[in-house]
């Protein structure tokens, strides 16, 4: 996608892949550090089980967003493949709208969760006593990113129908 919007989407995508990449590396480093601490120094970092859970949440939403942008999300396409092109494009636009609606519901409900955890002062039951709204923020933010990439898909579909399919 050309122009300002194109830069915007590329920028978001770049940020997402950097953040997700750092999370993946941190996951490996943290788990290896715990194994070494336990087997060599006979101690535990005491935070790894908790952090790993948070990293998985982040990897899920960011990884899903990256897969969506590359159009890697699973699809069963044998019926869609034989539809007339116009109908196929129309169905894609409808699907993107539904997916956007689903994302909005998730953003709304998970943002509510963040608010609930924040107002309750909910903490993790570990040595870190993490205020849980902080890691939980990964969910609404992640679904927002998914929504952004859905909008990009939508613009691409609309543009391709403007130019008669290509």
């Amino acid at each position, binding site marked *: 996608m050309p122009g300002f919007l194109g830069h915007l989407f590329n920028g978001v995508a770049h940020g997402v892949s950097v953040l997700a990449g750092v999370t*993946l590396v941190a996951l490996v480093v943290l788990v290896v550090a715990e194994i070494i601490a336990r087997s060599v120094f006979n101690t535990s970092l005491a935070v790894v089980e908790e952090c790993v859970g948070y990293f*998985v949440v982040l990897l899920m939403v960011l990884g899903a967003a990256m897969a969506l942008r590359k159009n890697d999300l699973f699809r069963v396409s044998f019926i869609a493949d034989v539809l007339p092109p116009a109908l196929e494009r129309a169905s894609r636009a409808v699907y993107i709208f539904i997916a956007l609606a689903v994302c909005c519901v998730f953003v709304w409900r998970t943002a509510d969760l963040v608010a609930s955890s924040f107002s309750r002062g909910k903490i993790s039951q570990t040595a870190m006593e993490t205020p849980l709204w902080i890691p939980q923020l990964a969910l609404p933010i992640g679904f927002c990113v998914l929504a952004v990439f859905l909008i990009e898909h939508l613009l691409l579909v609309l543009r391709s129908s403007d130019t008669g399919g290509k």
Partner: protein
Amino acid sequence: MEVILAFGLLIGLILGGFWVQFSVSTAGLFYIWLLNGFSGWKALGLVSWGAANSFTLAAIPLFVFMAEILLGSGLSARLYNGVAPFFRWLPGGLLHTNIAGCGIFAAISGGSAPTAAAMSTVALPELSERGYNRRIVAGSLAAGGTLGILIPPSITMIIYATFTETSIAHLFAAGLVPGILLALAYMGFIMLRVWRNPSLVPVERTVSSPGELRRAACDILPFLLLIVVVLGSIYGGLATPTEAGAIGVVGALMIATLYRRMSKNMITEAISRTLRMSGNILFIVFTSMIFAYATALSGVGDHLAHWLEASGYSKFVFLLMIMVVFTILGCFMEGLGMIAIIVPVIFPALMAMGVDPVWFGVFVVILVELGQLTPPLGVILFVVASSSNKVTVEDVALGVAPFFGIIFLFILLLIAVPEIALWFPSWSLGG
């Protein structure tokens, strides 16, 4: 009623070509709305958090990362060059390495998704390249991947044990022999299939010279080293099955360095592929759990289980009915959710019939395996499909269909000869 509407919508959306994850979440939201109205969606926040915030799910990105490093460094290609000469004489050739490889990964990881993800990432591109029929490659990987929960360690068995207070050690021991037998049955089937239709596999070159075999053996060495390190780390008490994935990543990095294949480009490419693949898989697991929440809330599983319990069938018919119930639920529920809903309800009736709880655990685990392979919601189908963009979910589903039949026959065999599962634990652990 609600369940039929929700399931109908799910199938309709998936067949209509909607992204699977969004099909599942749309159907899940619809299902919750049918049950409790819009206020039912209040639960989505905590349910999402509960489903995604999981230590054991970390095995998926870790094992995928390990496999991507092996793939990116070219070590997996080297491995296949290495093993190919040894499998030349066997009808099916390298297809057997899929099953054997899955068996080895199954002994490392506690779940099926990490097992299938790791093996498919390495095997699917390589074997398609060599001209193997991609459906039978994908099918054998999906079938082999499910061995992950049958061959110990197994998170599924641990969950079953918590619900039923069954011995975990006995369950682990009981899964081993059926796991190996099932793997052999897969291999037997591959041989039969290829013998009937040789065009499924490429024609390999003729006899290998001793020198070629020696060089080939050297190519296998790095991989053997990795297996020794990872298996050693969990059997030597250094790491848990989930953590073993991280050891695998470090091992793969070390081997890549040792063979001078490390580069910044290779690593960033591996990371980026790992993120997309594991994001895709974690997202489908996540949405399945949202759907499972709705199913649990509706009580449909309870109803099925209670109906089964009250039916008064004989032991054999009862077990067959359990197979039917698991197969139906398995089409649209994730495995642990099925165990949570069905097992506690029917367990007392089974005990009254004199069914061995350890044997039943193995039976349930194989049924869960089956559920991971049944469309529309079969996690392993998606895992295998995600490892290559040349293979679709449909390819995997069609490729795995005959293996599905083998698993079914194997379950019947297990009912007829329970000693298949029970002999080894009683021999090794007593009682």
